[in-house]
């Protein structure tokens, strides 16, 4: 058994690295994989379906750990658009900041962003749990259907626009709500949920500091009298 596998993207293409992660890795079973010099490249560690610890050492590009299942992927830097998009399970952790659409359409698993996430974080979320240590940009959790977005910092404009049944918790200020999103009173199970997610994300905040945002459900049925004004 290999104790630690190192893959250097200055020598290998992203395709070669991903082919290893999808193939040889399953036979070699290393204790962990380190991916060096990501240098903003896209789609690193995408489509994994195995229990493995992967560390990407540096800033990475778009679609990192997309479609992830079971793997634990840590990016020691910033990521570009759509980190952990369509994640099914496993854990993706970004030590730096994330660009737009982090966790887009994710069905399961945990996405932790230690820094800020920019706009449309958790767009069309379908079950993934996202914890952002910093702030999120505009239109975060846009049309989010299921899952949870926990924001330890502030939320930008139009938070939770056209929200379905996902729940948002925000510790800091909320610039504005999107259509149909509203603040609701925190209940016992909300405090429990936030505390559990903060603990799994290793964020040291008190669940009592958070506000709950969810859907007012007024967009669920077509209202001809609204004249497209929501």
């Amino acid at each position, binding site marked *: 058994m290999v104790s630690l596998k190192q893959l250097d993207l200055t020598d290998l293409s992203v395709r070669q690295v991903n082919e290893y992660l999808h193939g040889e890795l399953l036979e070699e079973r290393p204790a962990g994989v380190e991916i060096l010099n990501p240098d*903003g490249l896209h789609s690193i560690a995408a489509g994994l379906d195995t229990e493995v610890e992967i560390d990407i050492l540096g800033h990475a590009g778009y679609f990192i750990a997309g479609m992830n299942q079971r793997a634990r992927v840590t990016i020691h830097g910033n990521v*570009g658009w759509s980190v952990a998009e369509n994640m099914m399970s496993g854990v993706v952790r970004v030590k730096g900041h994330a660009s737009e659409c982090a966790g887009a359409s994710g069905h399961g698993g945990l996405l932790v962003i230690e820094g800020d996430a920019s706009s449309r974080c958790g767009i069309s979320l379908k079950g993934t749990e996202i914890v952002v240590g910093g702030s999120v*940009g505009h239109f975060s959790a846009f049309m989010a259907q299921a899952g949870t977005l926990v924001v330890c910092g502030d939320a930008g404009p139009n938070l939770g626009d056209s929200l379905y049944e996902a729940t948002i918790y925000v510790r800091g200020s909320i610039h504005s709500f999107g259509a149909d999103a509203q603040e609701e009173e925190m209940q016992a199970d909300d405090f429990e949920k936030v505390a559990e997610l903060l603990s799994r994300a290793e964020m040291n905040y008190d669940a009592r500091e958070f506000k709950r945002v969810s859907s007012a459900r007024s967009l669920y049925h077509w209202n001809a009298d609204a004249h497209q004004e929501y």
Partner: protein
Amino acid sequence: MCGIVGLLARRSDYRDDLGKLVTPMLDCMATRGPDSAGLALFRSPLETTSRRFALYAANIEYDWQSLADRCQRELDTQASLTFVENHAALVSPVAVNTFKAWLKKTAPEVHLLSVGQSIEIYKDEGHPEEIARRFHFSEMAGTHAVGHTRMATESAVSPAHAHPFTAGEDFCLVHNGSLSNPYSVRRKLESLGIAFETDNDTEAGCRFLEWRMREGDTLETAIEVAQAELDGFYTFLMATADKMVLVRDAFACKPAVVAETDDYVAVSSEFRSLAHLPDIKHAHVYEPAPEQIYSWSV
């Protein structure tokens, strides 16, 4: 999709190496825009009242020397010439309007790409790497440069539709995105006597900003006015002789990333085109916020 890049050197030796640093940025963004590319280079301003006229001809064997000779003779002026293939730079003290009128009459096949004391533009149809190689981008020196790789979505692929766009003197704009109301902006400007060279949406944005600056606005104020006037998606990267300025629209659908150190400011559509820059691991790397105007001085 398009790619935009910009680099402003804060350290003097990086000015000498500006082309060497910015060319890989542009090459890397070829995947975002493989059909045409361009680079606006800002050199230290000319010390005299002369202007640098950047010229383009479709014919790659164009006889630039003969054009320069005729310019000197017919306009009774001095004109020093440098050229590469279908691009030339003519430095002359001749009045800008005199030169423009003369060029239109004498050599209608030649297009004036830019005028100014600092700016020089190269742009053409073709793969960005090929364009960078043809015009020796990596050998260029200057204070700052902005470049563009184009994947056309709303108007033809042609050298004239390639970015950067210019208007007035020492001003250029590159754009990732698409404007929704370029024709209404254009009609408004045309009624003020402003002439257009293409049907491209970016040209409307460029001429709008230059018109505001001619009316006395700073570039930053002009952008604020443009934010209310222009509808559509944009990440705009602009440059004048002494600054580089970046702004994204309210929805920020078009990407941008900035890397700043004490030695340079670099802007690109994607981080991977900045990854080769010196000491990038210690740079302050951030995503510019929507609607915020970022301005860096030379």
